[in-house]
């Protein structure tokens, strides 16, 4: 029997390999946008949804759950931080505080 175990270990048993990773997004009940909650391992999307419900929504935290394969997400990198976001950082005229309004007037 010991030999059997060794043989199966060379080709990891399906149960001991890691199932794909899915990122979980929950939508809270009051109409807010979906927000990242964490991740789960699951064999397929259906199971990922069920696992996400059991792990991240035990107290009515969500009215809707999205699961997305982690590898399907494209993210900006920390190295991008400066140049990538620069166009949004040097335009104060996009904020209401940029504009002067006479005292005592509500606009």
């Amino acid at each position: 029997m010991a030999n059997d175990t060794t043989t199966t270990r060379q080709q990891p048993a399906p149960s001991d390999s890691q199932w794909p990773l899915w990122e979980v997004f929950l939508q809270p009940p009051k109409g807010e946008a979906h927000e990242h909650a964490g991740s789960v391992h699951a064999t397929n999307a259906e199971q990922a949804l069920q696992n996400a419900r059991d792990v991240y929504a035990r107290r009515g935290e969500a009215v809707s759950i999205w699961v997305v394969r982690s590898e399907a997400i494209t993210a900006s990198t920390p190295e991008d931080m400066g140049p990538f976001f620069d166009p949004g950082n040097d335009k104060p005229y996009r904020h209401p505080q940029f504009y002067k309004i006479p005292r005592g007037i509500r606009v």
Partner: protein
Amino acid sequence: MSSKAVQNMPAEDPARVAEFEARIARGESIEPKDWMPERYRRQLIRMMSQHAHSEVVGMLPEGNWITRAPSLRRKMSLLAKVQDEAGHGLYIYCGTETLGVDRQQLIDQLLEGTAKYSSIFNYPTLTWADIGAIGWFVDGAAIVNQTMLAHASYGPYARAMVRICKEENFHKRQGYEIMATLAAGTPAQHAMAQDAVNRWWWPSLMMFGPSDKDSPNSAELMRWGVKKKSNDELRQRFVNLTVAQAKAIDLVLPDPDLQYDEETENWKFGPIDWDEFWRVVKGDGPCNRERLAARRAAHDDGEWVRVAAAAYAAKQREEAAA
């Protein structure tokens, strides 16, 4: 830290380390893709995986009483609490994975007995009152620790802690309610509650870890903003919170040296038996072997579920392809 561990550590670029530490000093959150010193990454993997294992092993002492809870109400609460602990373990494993380590590898380390988990779970739950004491003391101590960790410099860890802290209060209150009910019951019930307090109080104080002067990891973890308070500060906070709670339900904390200090506004407590602490950490607590055996059996017994789920997914993929 051993000198061997230092030798194994790759040399870091001092400029990058300085920039990293400046970010910590500015209170910025460190995220998975950010550059971090290898030592920071390894310390977090160690600390977070031990934390996750503790949540998982923590289900065992309480699971012992699910079938014997004294009422349906208590049974429902305990089931929900134990389910939460499983969830908390998963939140933290998920956070640990963002550091580039496989969850399976962490679980293997737990099953092989090479990973540590909180020593408190190596004590037995002898009576129903122990379930009350665990909720009140053990979850109470965990809340003090995790409230601090919710401000940890590593984003995924901090966010997992926020989620956990929201749920943990129910754990503490259900425990305190159990103790209050027993303490107000018959003399035998009161005695059972007091006995549980006597056995759980000191191990609960040990949960915060060695005293600052004997805790080699603490200084580094505090410098890197993983911990914001020292073991001794957290322990003191827990004692200060608990004294009034014990008094209110007529139970006595088993420490003759417990005394209020007007000057510091702290409850001073007696010496902790650190020999016992190290004995349990090193594997010689009352239930170390039993806990691991139970965890391994649960993993092995779940094998068919994992196999079935994988087979079902494979079949669905085939059908979709056909």
